[in-house]
């Protein structure tokens, strides 16, 4: 943004071993990755259990819910928007899905479908208001957050909804080989997101809108539709996260996921995506989410006083962002 940041870049880098290395280093993923490695090593030194396979899979499984929310958040932030409703939408989707199965005795498929529709519907609602209503995303999604939480509580009457068919837990705790199902789901969703962002016109348009919305519109990008789509995607990933969370908790929880939106945003920004939009990589978000998960896990493993954990986490996030700030 500042005049200094517009420094000439090497055009047509010469191919050599050094330059390959430099190119890796020049990738926007490099710094989040370095942050991840540094934090992992620190955690490994401080706690013997950290680097066990079972613990690493444990971290990935814990991370999966926020990481999946962060996929939708990445799309939204790339267009220069924000979605504060993801945690509440996730809770509502899980609650409705569980409620339909348990309270209304519907087949599980109907419940899951309804959960997805809740996510899509609220995403659509956000998207329409932001894109055509031209209302600021932060306030639209804040309002949606309140609405979704309220609806979840009304529907459930404040009680968590348990008594789900036991196979639902497969989504949360199942494994394929040794890999937990949530981790596989997360990997798949990230792959799809990457293809969407980097191999389709839609992805280009997402980046273009974040880069310069007026110019994108002038070039013929259907900015409203693209913006609608990113909020719908965010609603969809929230519903998918709900599925995994429901499998993990084996119940529909209207108050689940409070504050998850902030974790998802932190993951996106830690991953190197510019909060103003236009720049960022989806795998950066994955790195950011894992970084946050490792912080939680490692500090827990070390048995640090929980109050102190918040403080340490805050400083480490600051440090990670500071190191990586050139890319922002």
């Amino acid at each position, binding site marked *: 943004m500042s005049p200094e940041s517009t420094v000439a870049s090497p055009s047509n880098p010469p191919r050599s071993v050094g330059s390959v290395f430099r190119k890796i280093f020049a990738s926007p993923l490099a710094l989040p990755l370095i942050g991840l490695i540094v934090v992992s090593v620190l955690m490994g030194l401080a706690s013997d*259990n950290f680097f066990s396979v079972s613990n690493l899979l444990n971290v990935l499984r814990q991370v999966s819910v926020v990481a999946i929310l962060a996929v939708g958040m990445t799309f939204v932030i790339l267009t220069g928007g924000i979605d504060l409703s993801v945690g509440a939408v996730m809770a509502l989707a899980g609650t409705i899905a569980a409620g339909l199965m348990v309270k209304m005795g519907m087949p599980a498929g109907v419940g899951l479908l309804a959960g997805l529709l809740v996510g899509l519907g609220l995403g659509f609602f956000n998207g329409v208001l932001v894109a055509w209503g031209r209302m600021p995303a932060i306030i639209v999604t804040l309002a949606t957050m309140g609405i979704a939480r309220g609806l979840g509580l009304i529907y459930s009457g*404040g009680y*968590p909804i*348990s008594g789900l068919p036991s196979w639902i837990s497969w989504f949360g705790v199942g494994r394929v080989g040794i890999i937990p199902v949530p981790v596989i789901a997360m990997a798949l969703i990230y792959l799809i997101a990457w293809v969407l962002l980097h191999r389709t016109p839609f992805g280009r348009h997402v980046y273009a809108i974040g880069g310069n919305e007026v110019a994108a519109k002038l070039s013929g990008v259907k900015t409203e539709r693209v913006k609608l789509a990113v909020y719908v995607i965010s609603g969809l990933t929230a519903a998918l996260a709900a599925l995994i969370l429901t499998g*993990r908790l084996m119940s529909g929880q209207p108050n689940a996921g*409070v504050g998850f939106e902030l974790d998802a945003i932190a993951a996106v920004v830690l991953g190197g995506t510019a909060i103003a939009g236009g720049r960022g990589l989806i795998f950066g978000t994955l790195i950011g989410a894992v970084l946050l998960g490792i912080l939680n896990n490692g500090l827990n493993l070390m048995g640090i006083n929980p109050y102190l954990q918040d403080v340490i986490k805050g400083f480490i996030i600051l440090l990670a962002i500071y190191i990586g700030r050139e890319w922002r």
Partner: protein
Amino acid sequence: AQDKKLKIGMTFQELNNPYFVSMQEALNEAAKAIGAEVIVTDAGHDVAKQISDVEDMLQQGIDILLLNPTDSAGIESAVTMAKEKNVIVVAVDANASGPVDTFVGSKNRDAGYQSCKYMAEKLGGKGEVAILDGIPVVPILERVEGCKAALGENPDIKLVTTQNGRQDRSVALGVVENMIQSYPNLAGIFSVNDGGAMGALAAIEGSGKDIKLTSVDGAPEAVEAITKGGAFIETTAQFPRDQVRVGLALALAHKWGARVVPAAVPIDVRVVDSANAKDFSW
């Protein structure tokens, strides 16, 4: 407010917890029985909002305030204001500072003590245990205190860690998963409430380890899990409906002019385990 219908206001620290929801249900039933009007608010764990809620109720001219404070000290000015308007104030579940007429609440220290004593017995008096803490408010802190006292009576039981699950199922799940990773020999977990315990239960079941879980509340889900058998072996039940019923009764007694109403009515807690879980409900 022309007709002299009795107005009862109740402010809850939160209403997305079955414990308080069942209190609200009991209140509605009781009020219906005596033909009173009920106003209910949800502070969402925010004292400032709770004070505002009380102020708003006072604007509506309530006669009785049933107060479930999210923080005992912080709510004092609301109590004072209510008393200035001659409203009868009964604290329910957690006490409040200031000129409260009566406090009705569980023996929280006892609850923590009994849960952890039960666990210690089931562990044969030895092993590593952990506490899953919650939001730092007086009742929760008392439960932890009680638990530590019970554990302290067993020299071979080692309290290895205390982590905060924020009484939230999803947070507790992750925290307990990590606990299990870092303390492979963990034998028991005490959760300060059933919400956190349900998350801990999911984590324990996911790990496939033999860890005994006890907790406080007696929530339907917890009771169901205990009935089924498994890691969740005990919850020390509170009686939320009875707290409200007793609280309302005492408030009415004040209203009718009784002068020797007790200032505090501790409500007993009861150990619920697989033996008696079938027959227990709030």
